[in-house]
Each structure stands twice: as structure tokens, then as C-alpha cells.
């Protein structure tokens, strides 16, 4: 009888000395969707307990914001650990060893849709198909940066708008403009870790991070000061009246008295008188004819907080920051995109006869 071409013993020997793995490009090597999605979530630290992120509570005191770079090796180890489940011998290790570069490359791409998955913008398969075929998103891994914020503002303003830009765009900043859109960094994660702690991850190194009060259409408001309130004087088109020399301009304010009988009730008559007096010396303010001109003055557009990196912060100690340093905070009051445009152009105050 003729011998078989290959004996099982020989096949085993070959397998032991040089195990052949299925090529990463083969369909069998592709990760199952659930697994890919799970690992991509781990990449942006979804589910990682808070104590591992902030090992000491003093690293994130109350009312603080801490910017950071994400340690990619750390995230890679989390993924390694997840794949280690069910790894009982050399067979699994050899398999993982052979596939790790391909997995890492794929997760570098898939981690960009984790936020879309969390926002339930579509099924994983659809999002992945679009993401994988888009030349803008299927490139190699980028630096991940972000911030962690512990503040009462997190619970008070749950729909806060958070954006990061690669260039320091000066005010007026319109997030919907083409310039801003091009400079905006992809938000990889924006989530509350607890009612008062928020984490954000961006792809790339930002030069400007903005936190914006959520929009509720047109708002009216006042600022509390001693003995009453104050409002910012506004031009007839709704923009603030600024005094001083740029960039140290401050808004000009008018004191809004309150009633003696209830100090939360604005004395509208006195406020109108004050505005009338101010208008006499500044013709750009609307004439106090009635409701519309008062409404312009008490407009209260959402607040946008800007965190800007200093231009050069190298050599200042052991830690170099590549220019991404949040040592300076400048705040400028701006309008929401829609309202802001409204305010920049004229709000025509007419009185119908």
C-alpha cells in the first residue's frame, strides 16, 4: 500500500515548528462585529472604572478641569487583556500574536465611530462600512487628547456643547462656518462618568477647546450684582457694546435695580430710565420705544468658555506639552450660531403704526 502524502504526525510537527495563521486579509480573520465594537469602546476607555483614570481624588479636585494626552499603550493593554479571555494555551497565543497588528490597525480606524455608536446614529455595520471606506477616517492612528471636568456645571448643563479646534480661531467664532468646521477636531468621546464628571476625547492636538452653554432658542437674562442685577449694554443689532482697547475689552454694563418689596423682581421702569439715559449718549443703542428695544438689551446669549493653549510653553520644566497647554482661560460672551448671526446683523426694531 502506498503511504499517504501527509501523516497526521508530520502535520502536527509542522504546525508546532511554524504555525501558519490565516492571513489578516482573509474574511475568516475579520473580527466579529460585536467583538470589534467592544474593543473599539475599550480603546476610548469606555467602561474603565473611574479609579483607574483618576487614581487619587486630589488629582481632580472639585471645580477643576484637567487636560491630558491619552496613553495609547495603556489602551492597547486593555484590548490585549480583553482578548486574553479564553486564552488557554499556545494555540491562542500564536493566533493573537499573528493577528495583533491587523487588530490594532482596524481598531485605530473603528475607534472613530464609537461616539456615533453611543449616539445611536446607525447600526454598527453601516457606520463601519462608511468609516472604513472614507479616506478621511481610515488613516493611521492619531494622537488622542482630551480633558476631564469635575464641576457643578456638568450636572447643571447636561447638554453643554464641547468642541475642539486645531487652530486658535478668534472670536467671533461661528461653529457652523467652513473655517471652523475644517479646524474642528473629531470628538471621540463625550460622556458623563458621574453626574458631575465629564470626560472628552479628541483626535489630534487642540489649540482651542470651547465649552458652550446649551441653546434654548432666544434667552433673556441678567447678571446678579450687589443690590440688584446688571445687564450688558447692547447695540441695536444685539451685539455687546465693548469699551477699552482690544484685546482687553470689557462689556459696558447698566445696573438693573430691583423692587424693595421683592428683590428678585426687576424694576423695569428704573431699568428703562437707565437705558434711556445711556442711549442719549450712545446712538447705536436702540431708542427705548417699547418692548422690542427692552428685549434687545436684556438678551442673554449662551456663554462660550474658551480654553486656549499658549503658543510656546516648552522648556518650562520636565513636562513638555507640544503647545497643548491649558494654562490660560479667556472667556468671551458669544451668541449661539443661529442667534449670533442674528445679533451681528441688524435686529430691526420697528414699530408698526
Amino acid at each position, binding site marked *: 500500500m502506498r503511504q499517504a502524502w501527509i501523516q497526521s504526525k508530520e502535520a502536527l510537527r509542522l504546525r508546532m515548528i511554524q504555525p501558519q495563521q490565516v492571513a489578516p486579509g482573509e474574511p475568516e480573520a475579520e473580527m466579529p462585529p460585536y467583538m470589534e465594537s467592544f474593543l473599539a469602546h475599550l480603546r476610548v476607555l469606555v467602561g474603565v472604572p473611574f479609579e483607574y483614570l483618576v487614581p487619587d481624588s486630589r488629582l481632580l479636585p472639585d471645580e477643576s478641569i484637567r487636560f491630558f494626552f491619552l496613553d495609547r499603550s495603556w489602551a492597547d493593554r486593555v484590548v490585549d487583556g480583553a482578548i486574553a479571555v479564553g486564552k488557554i494555551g499556545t494555540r491562542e497565543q500564536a493566533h493573537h500574536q499573528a493577528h495583533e497588528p491587523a487588530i490594532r490597525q482596524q481598531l485605530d480606524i473603528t475607534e472613530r465611530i464609537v461616539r456615533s455608536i453611543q449616539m445611536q446614529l446607525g447600526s454598527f455595520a453601516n457606520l463601519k462600512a462608511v468609516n472604513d471606506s472614507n479616506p478621511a477616517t481610515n488613516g493611521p492612528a492619531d494622537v488622542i487628547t482630551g480633558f476631564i471636568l469635575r464641576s457643578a*456645571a456638568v450636572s447643571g448643563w447636561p447638554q453643554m456643547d464641547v468642541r475642539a479646534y486645531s487652530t486658535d480661531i478668534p472670536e467671533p467664532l461661528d461653529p457652523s462656518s467652513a473655517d471652523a468646521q475644517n479646524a474642528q477636531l473629531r470628538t471621540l468621546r463625550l460622556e458623563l462618568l458621574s453626574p458631575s464628571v465629564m470626560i472628552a476625547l479628541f483626535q489630534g492636538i487642540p489649540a482651542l477647546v470651547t465649552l458652550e452653554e446649551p441653546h434654548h432658542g432666544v434667552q433673556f437674562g441678567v447678571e446678579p450684582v450687589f443690590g440688584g442685577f446688571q445687564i450688558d449694554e447692547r447695540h441695536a443689532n444685539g451685539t455687546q457694546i465693548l469699551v477699552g482697547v482690544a484685546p482687553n475689552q470689557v462689556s459696558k454694563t447698566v445696573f438693573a435695580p430691583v423692587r424693595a418689596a421683592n428683590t428678585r423682581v426687576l424694576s423695569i421702569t428704573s431699568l428703562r430710565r437707565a437705558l434711556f439715559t445711556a442711549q442719549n449718549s450712545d446712538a447705536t443703542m436702540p431708542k427705548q420705544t417699547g418692548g422690542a428695544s427692552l428685549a434687545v438689551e436684556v438678551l442673554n446669549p449662551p456663554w462660550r468658555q474658551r480654553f486656549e493653549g499658549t503658543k510656546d510653553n516648552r522648556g518650562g520644566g520636565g513636562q513638555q506639552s507640544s503647545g497643548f497647554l491649558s494654562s490660560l482661560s479667556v472667556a468671551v460672551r458669544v451668541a449661539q450660531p443661529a442667534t449670533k448671526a442674528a445679533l451681528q446683523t441688524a435686529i430691526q426694531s420697528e414699530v408698526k403704526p
Partner: protein
Amino acid sequence: MSDEPPQGQMYLYDNITPPLLDGSYRFNVSTDTTIDGADQNLPGATNYFNVEGPRFTLTPSLVAGVFPPRNGHGSFQDNIPHIALSRRTLPWERALDPSGLIGIPTAKQGDPPRPVGPAPWVGLLLFEEGEYTILQNQKLEDVVPSDVYKRLGSPANINCDAVQTTLPILNAIMPSLDELTVLAHVRQVNKDDRELSAGSADGWFSVVMSNRVPEPNSKCCACLVSLEERSDVIAKDPPPDFAPIRVVAEAPVAAAPAAVSRLAVGGISRGQNILQVNPFPFQINVSLVLLYSWKFECIGPGSFRDLMQGLDVAFFGTVANPGHPPVADTGHIKISLGDRAGVEETVMYRSPLVPFQLTRDPLGPYHSADQCRRVTPETGAEDVSYACAFEVGRLLAAADARLAQELMRWRREGYRQSARADTFSAVSATLPLVQPLDVHTPAIPVVATSATSSMLNGRGPAADRFGVNFIGNVIGLQPAAVQDAWQLSTPQEAENILGGDAGTLGASVVAPAATPRPATTIDAVAADAASLNNLSSARDRLIANAAQKVGGTP
């Protein structure tokens, strides 16, 4: 009307009045005709019609939006509540005080001209929890005083909702006549504007603002009330302003705290005029016709702006009090760890959030947490950061049953294919294949074809049948190697030592040329009757021999 504003912009108007106020109208028609100088007037006619609009109730669909949001929780203490109504003329469809009972506000020095246009008949009042009671489905005559009811025209069988409060509270918050006028305006936005024009078909809104700012940490109810003919509660002049004591410079030291504490109570103390009217003002209840109301809760920490400006901004790893905890240059902190021997140990740990950019570890993958442990040479302390990361990932994955299944499936697919690939490589090492094997295509046809062709081709004639060439490769039998090893001058010497000339080992044998065989076909074989006969007779012979051996007949 004027054109729409562009998207993202809005126009504001002080007011928009309807051509006719709500009410009952009579029109008389008389036609004066003159024929040849003589009056020939046609008979006149009188007709009646009503202009009707919301009066004691308001359809909720007319409310386009409110702020603060209905049942909203948030930091609204710096916001002025307002309501947007989707009918631009609604606040001016009725006269507030047609008979002028309120009077004309007193003009003071420096006052602006009185606001242009009529006062609205609605007002937005903000009440805090405990200051109001909402009564539903009340008879109108129970809600408004009798003289107001009479001035309203004594409409019968009207039921409405009402908000009840006490007179001092109402007096403190009710806007005066001119304040009411300026607290309402009209807004026009582009009707395609998604953000500004929510819920309006034509882009027009009338907006009524409140004059009261919500108290922090309070539950509030904003009430849109009808103030038609309510000259009993609307003052022509606003009550006095609160005069803050900014600097108590000359006041006696003892008096200053008293003044401050009195202010802190809330300043209701100035409502003296009410005390003169009635000794128990807090028991006088006032009701107003309630058109719409919504509640919200003002909780929260102050304004967004103040919070943002007050943030402590730094890179991760910065601590307020340096050294508590000590953070290494590398961002590591010390933590305590019970090692596997149960011994307490101080180790270094760094979270994935680091204050500077790190290069990515290229030494992946790691297969166990121990593989990720590191020791820093300077301190001898162990760095468990990545080992922790590994364990976190492992525990998170192990907690997910479905992931374990998917991992098994992923591996199983891989193993199946890789086992095939291994078999294929063993096969291709043994058998010359006509084409490479592929794990995705059936292998049997390729192997069968290769086997057949290798049988057809044969192994070819054997070269070096006796292994002479092979022996010649033995190093001691090569003249050149011997010469080199023994430093001989010529190769001939080496040959002599090896036992003579090169012919001793025999000439090198080359393979004889293969016998050329014409390509043949099945048809040609079938046509060769002589050969087939030979084969057939040989077969018969063999069968006969075999039959003889076993002792039977074929």
C-alpha cells in the same frame, strides 16, 4: 407685512395690534342719495358681529414655547422667564383698561417717553412654591371682583382656571402699567430657521416676559394671566426700588449689622401702604384668570459663566497642594498593592491620562498581565500601570458573556483555516502541485490533478544511481579541501594522497536523456488492437494462473 428676515436672524417689534379689538361690534349702513337736489336716502341697516379671541382660556396649541422649559431643572436664576405665543397680535387683541381707571403714570425727571402703543391684556407672573394656589374650573364671578365682572360685561356661565395669591405678594411682583407694555414684544424669524422658529408656521411670535428672576434653589410656577379690566391690581406707578447700602461708613458700628440683617430678610418691610389699608394683609386673597402655567425648578450652582470662570485649569497630574499626593515627573503616583505572596508593597501607577505625549509601545501584544509589569531601575519600584490596564480589559471582557462567545467564534474560524493551511504546506512539500493551494477553494481537484500528472510524468531517470556524486561530496574525499587543509602546493599532490588521479572515483554521471515518447491519446490507444489483445491475453493468463493456484476454475 415686511419681508422675512434671513435665516438665523430675527426682527423685533414693540407690538402688533389687530385691526379690530375683540368685542361685539355694530355697524350701521346708511346711504345718502340726492336726486335733483332732493334727498332720497335709502333705508339704512344695522348689523352686529363679534370679534372673538381667547379671553378666559387659552388653547395650549397657541403656546409656541416657554423658557425655562416646562418641568425643567436647571440653573435658571439669571434668566428671565418668557412665553412665546404663536399669534402675533394676541397680547393686544383686547384692551387692558379701556376706561382708563388705572390712570396715567407720573412722569419723573429723566424719564424716557412713555412706551408707544397699547398695553397688553396679559402678563406673565412668576410665583414661587407656597405663594400661589392654582384653582381649576372656577366660575368667573368667583375669580374676579364684582366690579371687574361687571366691566367685563357680566358674561354668564364662564368657567376658567385661576391662580390665587395674597395681595402683598401680588403687589410686589405685579408690573405697573408701562412695565406691562414693555414686557411684551413681537418677534419675526425666518420660518425655515430650525432653531429659532420651532413650532410656528409663519415665523411670527408674540413674546411676554416676566419681570421676576427665579430665586436659586426654588420651585417656580410661571403663570400667564389675563389682566383685562384688573385696574384693582395694576398700579400706575411701580413700587419703590430697593436701595442697597453699599458702604456703611458713617453709621454707628452697632447699627450696621441690624441694617444688614434686615435686608437679608427680604425687604418686604417697605410695604407700609398695605398695612394702612388692612391690618391683616396676608389674609387678603386675590385671584386672577389663569390662561396658561408651567412649572420649573431652579436648582444649581450659579451661572454657567461664573462656574467656567472659576474652574481650576491645569494639565492632568497637577495637584492643588504640591506633594499631596506626590506625582513623579513621569506622571506616576505611588499606590499600595498586596502582591501575590500577600505582602504589602508600594508600587508606581500611572493612569491612561498623562500630561505629555507618549510613544506607543511597539512590543505588543502582551499575553498576560505579568508580561506588562515593569521595574524602574532608579527606584526599584514596580510599575503596574500596564498590568492594571491588562487586568481591567480582561475583567471587562470576562464580564461580558457575549464577547467570550464572539472571541471563541473568531478563533475557531481562524484555527480551521490555519489547520488547512498547515496541511496544504505539508502536501505541497511532498507533492509538486500544478497550482498553489488556496484555503478558500476546494483542494481535492488540485491535489488529484497534481497526483495524476506526477504519475504520468513519472520520476524521470535516476541520475547517480550508485551515489558516487554524493560520496564525492564527503569532505575528506575532495582534493581541493585536502589541499587546503594540509596546505599542499598543488591539487595533484592532494589527488595523489587520496589515491591517484581523478578517475579513481569514476567519472561524474549525468542523467541519460529521457526517452522521447510521442504524445498519445485514449483514442490512439483504443485503436491499437494488437496491444490491446496482448493486454487482454496477459490478463487471461494471470486469471488462469490464479485459478490454478486456488484450485478452482475461473
